């Protein structure tokens, strides 16, 4: 029987793995992910989950073990975050090339330096070219549901690639909200046990995976196969989404349309902060602004067609990136802009915003400023950005901190002028 519970995003992730009846869980702890592997360790220990739970010495070993176990035909789950994901980086690419369909949950946490524990997406987006599929989620419910969907998509013979499900640290990982826990029998109907005919690495039948291929032609062939397989995942996702909706009543598409009907200007966001964006759209609509929100959900493969269909013909589009590529700007802005460059009726203006870095709050006033500036850019026919969302109050506090640290007045004024050069100042709300 399905039950409704107040669950953290981390527990929802653990339940996703449990309901998928995974066989093997290699683990290494890192805040804010640890609760996931802790819950799984407990269930493996008391027999609630018939899986082998193994602690490894690092994320590098953990991902290697995960890939190797998946190559034997086992259903594998693991989780990490931030620095841990980076430590596993070499292996991400390697096992994606092995074409093993495991699921990795990444709990987003901003990268060092300086060190923080709160989320932004520089960690997960750094892995966007690894060959892993990427699903970015907004709610605790979507965490659980997306893990089940990710196994179906990854294990599909047309795909055979590992998948990453991304949830924001704190904003989802430690946030408790209502989650409908599906009935295990129904999950079995949706996601039958994994019995791949092509994977079966074992001691008595040795195989070589990912061997050396010099000269480039064989290499190009296999890498391009990965690309085609990833693109296949777009159609497979939609089939799986339809099945999921039929069984569980919840529908997830490649992208999410929030009040796009009749919207002149559109704000593009991803992950948990999109909830705040939706509230801001409601508030702006109530004030008479015709705005909507497009949430990017499946980021690899990149659903260019769906994005263009949602954004073409709009007056202006603003992409709010919760990441920063130094020397470039927002990562997702570039990808959205590239998709739109071939659109027949592309928006008159594209605006790029950087916000929520290191989990920084985005206030109602900042959202309102985005809507106002984007509308103006649309009228003008010229986009702006990258603009860093940073309120006057935050700037004052930062100046105080710098002064406490002994920063000179000259350096302080340089800081202020850099801030204003970064784009229009945004007022703090009160």
């Amino acid at each position, binding site marked *: 029987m399905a039950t409704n519970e*107040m669950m953290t995003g981390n527990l929802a992730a653990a339940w996703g793995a449990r309901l998928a009846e995974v066989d093997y869980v290699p683990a290494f702890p890192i805040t804010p992910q640890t609760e996931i592997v802790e819950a799984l360790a407990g269930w493996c220990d008391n027999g609630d989950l018939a899986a082998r739970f193994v602690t490894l010495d690092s994320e590098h070993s953990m991902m290697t073990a995960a890939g190797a176990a998946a190559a034997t035909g086992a259903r594998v789950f693991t989780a990490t975050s931030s620095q841990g994901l980076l430590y596993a980086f070499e292996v991400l690419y390697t096992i994606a090339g092995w074409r093993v369909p495991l699921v990795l949950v990444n709990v987003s946490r901003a990268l060092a330096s300086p060190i923080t524990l709160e989320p932004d997406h520089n960690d997960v987006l750094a892995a966007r070219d690894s060959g892993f599929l990427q699903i970015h989620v907004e709610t605790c419910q979507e965490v659980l549901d997306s893990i089940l969907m990710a196994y179906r998509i990854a294990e599909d013979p047309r795909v055979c690639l590992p998948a990453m499900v991304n949830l924001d640290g704190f904003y989802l990982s430690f946030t408790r909200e209502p989650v409908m826990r599906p009935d295990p029998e129904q999950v079995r109907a949706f996601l039958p046990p994994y019995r791949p005919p092509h994977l079966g690495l074992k001691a008595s039948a040795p195989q070589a995976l990912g061997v050396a291929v010099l000269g480039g032609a064989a290499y190009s062939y296999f890498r391009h196969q990965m690309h085609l397989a990833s693109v296949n995942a777009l159609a497979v996702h939609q089939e799986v989404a339809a099945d999921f909706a039929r069984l569980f009543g919840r529908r997830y598409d490649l992208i999410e349309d929030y009040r796009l009907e009749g919207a002149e200007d559109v704000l593009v966001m991803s992950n948990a902060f999109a*909830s705040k964006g939706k*509230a801001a759209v409601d508030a702006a609509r109530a004030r008479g602004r015709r705005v909507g929100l497009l949430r990017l959900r499946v980021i690899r493969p990149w659903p260019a067609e769906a994005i263009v269909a949602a954004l073409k013909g709009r007056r202006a589009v603003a992409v709010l990136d919760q990441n920063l590529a130094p020397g470039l700007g927002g990562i997702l802005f570039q990808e959205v802009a590239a998709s739109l460059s071939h659109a027949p009726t592309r928006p008159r203006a594209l605006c790029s915003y950087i916000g929520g870095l290191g989990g920084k709050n985005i206030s109602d006033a900042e959202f309102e400023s985005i809507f106002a500036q984007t509308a103006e850019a649309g009228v003008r026919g010229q986009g702006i950005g990258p603009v860093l969302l940073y309120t006057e109050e935050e700037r004052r506090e930062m100046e105080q901190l710098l002064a406490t640290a002994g920063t000179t007045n000259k350096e302080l004024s340089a800081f202020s002028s850099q801030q204003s050069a970064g784009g229009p100042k945004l007022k703090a709300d009160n």
Partner: protein
Amino acid sequence: MIKKRLNIRMSGLGGQGAVTAAHVMAMAASKDGKFAISNPFFGAEKRMAPAESYCRIGIERIYDRGELVFPDVIEVFHPQVITMGKSYTMPFYSGIKEGGLVIINSDAPLLTEEDIQRLNDLHVAVFYINGTQVALEVAGTELSTNMTMIGSVAGITKCVSMHALDLALQERFGKKFVASGGTATLDEAIKKKFAKKEMLLQKNLDTVKRAYEMGVEWAEKNKYELQVAAMAAA
């Protein structure tokens, strides 16, 4: 004041159970049929370091998440939040809404004249409860201090019912004993384990109840009203 949503910010120190308190409140509100969401904020996970948690309870779907900037209620779990500035926001009451409520666990007043003046200007009520003492008296351990913070805010605002709190505590700290259906020896062993758990559960519940009554009494005496509207009938 009757509101569609009550935003509660709990400022405590690592180890005091502020995170658990917000989770239990949200679980209880959900059991009452309301919309609820809770989350913590902390840095280093160590004892006595600042730890904050947030609980939003309302009658409409809640899109807001993460840091709670504009709370209706602030609960201070430990005097050091105020006296040593162990708070992520300075002063600890920054962002509090007009007509809001501050609940402080302390045996003595802690606010400066300036603090009192600023809170008065915003018509914010302040309720001091010696929660640690109440926890020691009722539960025999100061570890139950967080239960007094749950009880007092529930008693004053009625944002969650005592019945729902009872259910939420059972869910959080272990359900009541159910026979295993195995051997009598096995049942006996499980019963012993559960007996201790049940006793702890009962003590925590008693602590919540005591603080709830203190909250009710204080609100009546001071004619203070801050509540969440009732859910529309389904």
